């Protein structure tokens, strides 16, 4: 027996067959009609649409044979696909290629075979339309011509199969693309960052919603890259007070622009778009608003610089006077005087360090370590008064509370710390005998659910300009140096009350005094 030989272009041939996506699909009437017709035409019991796969022949349609595939090496069709026209074997017993083939020597006991090659749309021979009988036959030329015609019809049907598959694939691709586009569109609409795309000719093809709000309408309206780039360059300049960021490998630059009267610091990044084959396809410009990060950065630098100054100044006194005391001789009175200065300055320094650490701790934890609990207010006020009043000064603080106060929702320790700072200021910035009034603010708070704890003094008060800066770190309204303090107390109060979800109101009049109201969350009053 001669096994079915393998064609030279086998790989392409098998690929073409598999691309039809027909292997192992269910039988279809449009093929079965043709095989029945072929069997009738040759008066044969068996007819097949046989497709020659790499290891087998598989039957898309099969009349008169109870099998769906056989091994390729014993197949007649494996031979037939080498032929330009039909392979005709009138009697297999007389043909040395097939005489001892198991399909001949055992059932189905083939004698006659005629197979017309089938071509894929690309022209690869992928199988046959064949007729088979257990008796020898000598087919007429007309029969063989009809077989060739039927084979062409089978080829058409196979081609349609591919077409249908291509259509289905394209519809699936389109649906996937549509879903992808919608997803991307939603993402781009939600992001606060701006994206603008230009094609390879510089024509704008896309701009998301954030673009106009970030750069302003007139820049967002530019419909080509050159105009867009020029308008952005004209509106922007490197942000002040920051070393200019060099255009780095990723093409990221920073610029400050003023749009609709508002200054923004933007980070800009340009990326080229390339097609799958590497050809340029335009570019995408990405803009991110980093104004907040920039501002935080600037404030950190400023804070560090001021903190360094505030820490080094008392340190300079301590270090300098200590050195003089060590290296020079002074009389007892001078020595005592210098030691007092050192003592006073080191006390200031340690207060300052404590306050800085308090602020840093509260900022770092952002309230995560607050133990907020519902509790009555009066014990908290008593505790704050006791802590804030220097010895013999407690009488200056006059407490007046209404009868039924709702419980408050605070971290007791942090709230007391804030209140102590406010009371200390009230005592510090008013006459030595002047009273400080501690009470509850009127019922109309800045928001429902807040209770106001008011601290009113009759002291020096503040000008509107001083009031504006009262929460600024290291800001001190009184700069003569007569009143100790670093200017961190009210910043700390603000941090704490903000984190408790409250508000601070300050009313002040120079020479008349200041009222600080700490609005803190209270438990809802029960309905009557």
């Amino acid at each position, binding site marked *: 027996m001669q096994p079915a030989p393998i064609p030279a272009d086998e790989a392409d041939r098998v690929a073409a067959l598999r691309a039809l996506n027909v292997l192992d699909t269910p039988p279809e009437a449009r093929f079965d009609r043709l095989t029945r017709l072929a069997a009738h035409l040759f008066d044969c019991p068996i007819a097949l649409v046989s497709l020659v796969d790499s290891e087998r022949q598989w039957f898309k349609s099969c009349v008169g044979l109870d099998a769906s595939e056989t091994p390729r090496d014993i197949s007649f069709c494996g031979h037939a696909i080498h032929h330009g026209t039909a392979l005709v074997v009138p009697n297999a017993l007389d043909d040395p290629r097939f005489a001892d083939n198991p399909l001949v020597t055992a059932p189905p006991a083939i004698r006659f075979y005629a197979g017309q090659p089938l071509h894929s749309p690309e022209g690869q021979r992928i199988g046959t339309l064949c007729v088979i009988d257990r008796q020898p036959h000598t087919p007429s030329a007309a029969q063989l011509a009809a077989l060739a015609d039927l084979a062409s019809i089978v080829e058409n049907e196979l081609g349609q199969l591919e077409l249908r598959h291509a259509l289905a694939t394209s519809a699936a691709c389109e649906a996937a693309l549509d879903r992808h586009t919608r997803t991307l569109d939603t993402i781009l609409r939600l992001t606060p960052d701006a994206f603008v795309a230009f094609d390879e000719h510089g024509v704008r093809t896309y701009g998301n919603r954030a673009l106009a709000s970030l750069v302003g309408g007139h820049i967002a309206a530019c419909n080509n890259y050159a105009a867009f780039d020029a308008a952005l360059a004209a509106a922007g300049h490197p942000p002040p007070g920051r070393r200019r960021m060099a255009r780095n490998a990723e093409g990221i630059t920073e610029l400050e622009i003023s749009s609709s009267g508002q200054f923004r610091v933007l980070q800009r990044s340009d990326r080229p778009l390339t097609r799958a084959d590497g050809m340029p396809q335009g570019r995408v410009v990405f803009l991110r608003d980093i104004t907040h990060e920039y501002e935080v950065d600037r404030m950190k630098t400023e804070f560090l610089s001021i903190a*360094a100054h505030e*820490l080094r*100044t008392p340190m*300079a006194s301590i*270090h300098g006077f200590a050195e003089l005391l060590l290296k*020079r001789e002074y009389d007892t009175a001078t020595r005592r005087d210098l030691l007092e200065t050192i003592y006073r300055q080191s006390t200031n320094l340690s207060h300052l360090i404590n306050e800085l650490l308090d602020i840093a701790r509260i900022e770092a934890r952002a309230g995560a370590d607050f133990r907020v609990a519902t509790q009555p207010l009066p014990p908290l006020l008593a505790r704050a008064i006791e802590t804030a009043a220097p010895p013999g000064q407690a009488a200056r603080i006059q407490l007046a509370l209404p009868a039924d106060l709702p419980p408050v929702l605070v971290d007791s320790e942090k709230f007391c710390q804030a209140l102590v700072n406010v009371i200390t200021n009230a005592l510090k910035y008013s006459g030595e005998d002047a009273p400080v009034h501690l009470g509850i603010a009127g019922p109309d708070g800045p928001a429902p659910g807040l209770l106001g704890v008011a601290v009113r003094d009759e002291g020096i008060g503040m000008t509107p300009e001083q009031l504006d800066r009262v929460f600024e770190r290291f800001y001190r309204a009184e700069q003569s140096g007569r009143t100790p303090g670093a200017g961190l107390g009210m910043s700390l109060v603000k941090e704490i009350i903000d984190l408790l979800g409250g508000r601070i109101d300050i009313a002040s009049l120079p020479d008349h005094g200041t009222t600080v109201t700490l609005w803190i969350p209270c438990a809802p009053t029960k309905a009557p």
Partner: protein
Amino acid sequence: MDTLRPHEGPLKPPGAPFRILVVEDQPELRRLICMSLDEPGYELHEAANGDLAAARIAEIRPQLVILDVMMPGTLDGLTLCRRLRADAATAGIRVVLLSARGQQDDRELGLAAGADAYLVKPFSPLELLQLVRRWSTA
């Protein structure tokens, strides 16, 4: 560092006293500097901010100004230093800048403003004295 008694300094500079203006907003630091330079032959003057200092310089014509960099008021140390250098009448005055800022950038900024020396707080009073002695005896 040498140990010095208040009046055991170098020989009194010959001729006219060496006039020094100490410009510092913190009264205690002003006192520290004056105590450090409490030597025969030095005539010490004080100013609490840049604006007052500018007026005092025009008035007393000091040979040396010890100048705090960060001061309240309209005239900070760096600006005053540049102004002294720009004016031929005051360009020869020695200037020591005193600053709480000790980064390399800050020093460079100070020296670029024309200062002869840049001391970072906390500074050594005796080191300051050494500097002043070198200039007053030169």
